[in-house]
């Protein structure tokens, strides 16, 4: 008989002096199930997680209605120390949950607290390190690890507690596509072999669709949908409305069933396709039957760019001086022309951010020359480079300090020494661009993370740069948030500016960028128009990347008349028409 690990009945929660965070949430989770929790930023995902292991009400206070039972315990009556033995949680930010000073003691921390026997602790730590792919890093200190490695350590540290319920809050936000798949496979394996119940929040719907037993969608604290992945993702339009991006396969199926009468009935029995394989099988069958046909539609081509280099690297090598010197760039040569939309992709620690910092003069090349607008960067002051290049950082909290949003934007402009009139004009324009006019007098730290990020972006745009660099627009951003940033960039490109984006979100890169630069181990291993780069299987594999779902699908359908790699659902949808056959 299966028992319920989690029972939540009509849960409503309001933070003390804060907003309503959850509203009428009801769900039951069976032991050994994987539940994927989806939703945009501020939809209550993290609040739900906090409920499950007693962080609410112990750490954060608020008023609650309804009931919640975790493994037979009520968080409101049970001390957190009892609850935390049943449920272990891995937090969003891998940086802050590092409680000790090296990896191995981090892995021992949880079980030691539980008073587990010493030999058993060692066994678990070894097992968890192996499973999470961090074996060999045991003696490293947190500052010697990359963001992705820290996230794996955090997951391993949660695993060593061998809880009945494992709660993962965005466990893969800083991992590359292959790393993400690995982590999800680990999670799947745990649920099967150890009968662990797993609650996982994520923006990576592809992976959730592949492995979760149940999917819960939240919007502003309310339950929008709850059910098996196929049930949930068949409501693609509803999900899009609440800022959840269904897997491309599901979106495609939904789009086609609107366009082609009778299409929906074809997959009604097996459920909506949510993986590339399922989608390909369905399309293949329908194409063979003649129910649909492919009419090749040329995807829109990016505007031709003239050759007028604005950013140039010539044989640049860079080594970080440290206890163990790390060579982050090896003999990199690159030219970016005015008006290009370039994406730099690659695994964590492949040198993407290091490369970009060279353009800004924050790092000086150990060997080689870096040029901006034809001028050698090593001869320029950082302040004057800032006039032509703006970098929008991953974490806006590193730069926000002013008492109001408006003052925040003015800061950079005053550094440039502009006249007052021009400052206020540019501030207005930038606030308008990101849509934050209403909050111009508010203290930035009171805004949500997504809005803080927009403030940081506006501060960059206000500088009116010729070149805009986006560093990982996906970090801690939901589906809508990341698109907002990229759309701003797109508009700026239309005004003739140059855009450089660093990311490992393949969907985003495929949709917006024109040219892809693939990096691995400090080298550029591929560089070209996006549709061509997605065909370079070996190089992508070497960089731990996977093409987006739609591109994979178009590669599989090459024999049926899809001539080139397609990157968006719309492009694919245009090519598929109702067939004349039966």
């Amino acid at each position, binding site marked *: 008989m299966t028992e319920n690990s989690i029972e939540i009945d009509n849960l409503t929660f309001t933070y003390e002096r804060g907003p309503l965070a959850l509203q009428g949430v009801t769900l039951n989770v069976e032991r050994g199930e994987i539940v994927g929790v989806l939703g945009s930023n501020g939809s209550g995902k993290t609040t739900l997680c906090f409920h499950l*292991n007693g*962080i609410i009400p112990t*750490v954060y206070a608020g008023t609650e209605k309804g009931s919640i039972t975790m493994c037979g315990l009520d968080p409101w009556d049970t001390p957190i*120390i009892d609850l*935390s*033995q049943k449920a272990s*949680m*891995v*937090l969003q*930010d891998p940086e*802050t*949950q590092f*409680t*000790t*000073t*090296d990896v*191995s*003691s981090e892995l*021992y*921390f*949880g*079980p*030691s*607290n*539980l*008073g587990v026997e*010493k030999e058993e*602790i060692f066994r678990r730590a070894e097992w968890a390190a192996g499973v999470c792919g961090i074996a060999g890093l045991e003696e490293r*200190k*947190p*500052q010697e690890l990359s963001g992705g490695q820290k996230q794996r350590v955090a997951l391993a*540290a*949660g695993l060593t*507690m061998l809880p009945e319920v494992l*709660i993962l809050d965005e466990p893969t936000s800083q991992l590359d596509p292959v790393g993400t798949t690995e982590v999800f496979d680990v999670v799947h394996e745990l649920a099967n072999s150890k009968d662990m119940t797993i609650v996982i929040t994520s923006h990576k719907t592809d992976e959730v669709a592949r492995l979760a037993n149940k999917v819960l969608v939240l919007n502003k604290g309310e339950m929008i949908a709850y059910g098996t992945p196929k049930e949930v993702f068949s409501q693609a339009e509803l999900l899009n409305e609440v800022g959840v991006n269904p897997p491309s396969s599901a979106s495609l199926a939904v789009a086609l069933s609107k366009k082609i009468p009778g299409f929906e009935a074809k997959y009604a029995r097996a459920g909506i396709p949510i993986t590339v394989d399922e989608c390909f099988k369905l399309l293949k069958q329908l194409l063979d039957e003649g129910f649909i046909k492919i009419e090749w539609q040329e995807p829109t081509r990016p505007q031709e760019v003239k050759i007028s280099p604005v950013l140039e690297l010539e044989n640049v090598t860079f080594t970080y001086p440290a206890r163990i010197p790390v060579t982050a760039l090896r003999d990199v040569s690159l030219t970016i022309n005015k008006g290009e939309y370039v994406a730099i992709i690659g695994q964590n620690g492949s040198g993407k951010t290091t490369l970009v*910092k060279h353009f*800004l003069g*924050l790092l000086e090349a150990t060997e080689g020359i870096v040029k*901006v607008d034809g*001028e050698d960067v090593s*001869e*320029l*002051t*950082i*302040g*004057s480079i*800032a*006039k032509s290049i*703006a*970098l929008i950082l991953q*974490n806006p*909290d*590193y*730069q*926000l*300090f002013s008492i109001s949003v408006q003052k925040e934007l003015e*800061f950079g402009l005053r*550094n*440039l020494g502009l006249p007052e009139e021009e400052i206020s004009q540019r501030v207005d324009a930038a606030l308008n661009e990101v849509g934050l006019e209403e909050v111009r007098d508010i203290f930035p730290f009171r805004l949500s993370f997504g809005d803080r990020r927009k403030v940081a972006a506006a501060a960059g745009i206000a*500088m009116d740069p010729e070149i805009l660099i986006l560093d990982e627009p996906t970090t801690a951003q939901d589906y809508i948030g990341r698109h907002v940033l990229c759309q701003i960039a797109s508009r700026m490109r239309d005004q003739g500016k140059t855009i450089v984006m660093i990311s490992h979100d393949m969907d985003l890169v495929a949709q917006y960028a024109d040219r892809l630069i693939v990096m691995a181990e400090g080298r550029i291993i591929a560089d070209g128009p996006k549709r061509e780069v997605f065909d370079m299987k070996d190089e992508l594999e070497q960089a731990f990347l996977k093409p987006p779902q739609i591109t994979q699908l178009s590669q599989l359908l090459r024999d049926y008349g899809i001539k080139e790699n397609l990157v968006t659902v719309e492009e694919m949808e245009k090519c598929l028409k109702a067939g004349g056959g039966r």
Partner: protein
Amino acid sequence: MAFEYVKKDTPLDRMNPLVKLLYMALALLLVVQCTRIDTISILLIWIIIATVWWIVGKVELKSLGFLIKLLSFLFVFLFIVQGLTYRFGDQTIILKLFDFPVGGGASNYGEMTVGGVMFGLVIALRVIAVVMVIPIFTMTSPMSKISSSLARMRVPQKVIFMFITAMRFVPLVQESMDNIIEAQKIRGFDLDSAGIYQKLRRAYIPIITPLLLLMFRRAMDLEVAINARAFGAKKDRTDVEDISFKARDYIGILIIFSTFLFCIYLLYFDPTLITWNLLVMLVTSISSGIGGALYAIGITDLITNINSVLLSIPLLDIIGGFFNQNLLTGYGAIIAILLIGYIIYRLIRRRTRKKKRVKK
């Protein structure tokens, strides 16, 4: 970071942290009792023995240099203040800076005496004697072992955790600070070219504000993180590290105690002045050697002349006979000239440093 543990696999590495803690405690105990100038010899012995520990533990000498650099301002301050105000011991005047009679002319705080400078040296050595022992503890003991041994001593879990968190936050603050400075630089905020006054008044706000806000947030997250991992669930945490006392720990204790007792013996029962006398001899020979050499190449004459020239400038004379010493003629001038030379050198270096252009 300068004082973090790095695994080196030396005998000190494997030694129980409690032994090293004991070492620190004894260093403090000894130093508290070394207050007179003639205890300088005992302090020196202690420091020499501590150096042996450094060598055995393969602690980088670089970190000692870092310590000295950190404390150098304090030392200079000590030498000057003690030199001017301490009125015991050798009253020979090295340098007369100005006139500041106190106690109805009984002593003049404008005069630097040998005894005063010596006393400044004693205080500096006392500081060094304690500070030198700290890296032996922090740089050779892994945090996990420290916490286990503290737990063994029945220190409450929460106190230990506070200690570990403090150690964890130091590099975190450093890292965040670097990131923030970088983030502000790319917004055209140029910290390097701002003057000191400007830096203090205005420039640090864009750096300190985000740092504080970030750290508050981090602290909050940390609370969530330790709760999520059952901190404090069981009264008895499992100690992963083996911290039982081994032969080498007993040997360590033996060495520490014998050193300590030897120093105490010197201090209270037989205040031999062997090292003291040696030191005096050394200082005398060096100064007479330099003096002789300077005289031989005619620098002393030159300085005397410079001195008289300087004295003939009316304004300088008014300041209080800056260059008017009776003993060690002209050494004040040497120091002053060196100082002026150094300042000029720094100015020239600043001017000739690679100048960055401003982009058109």
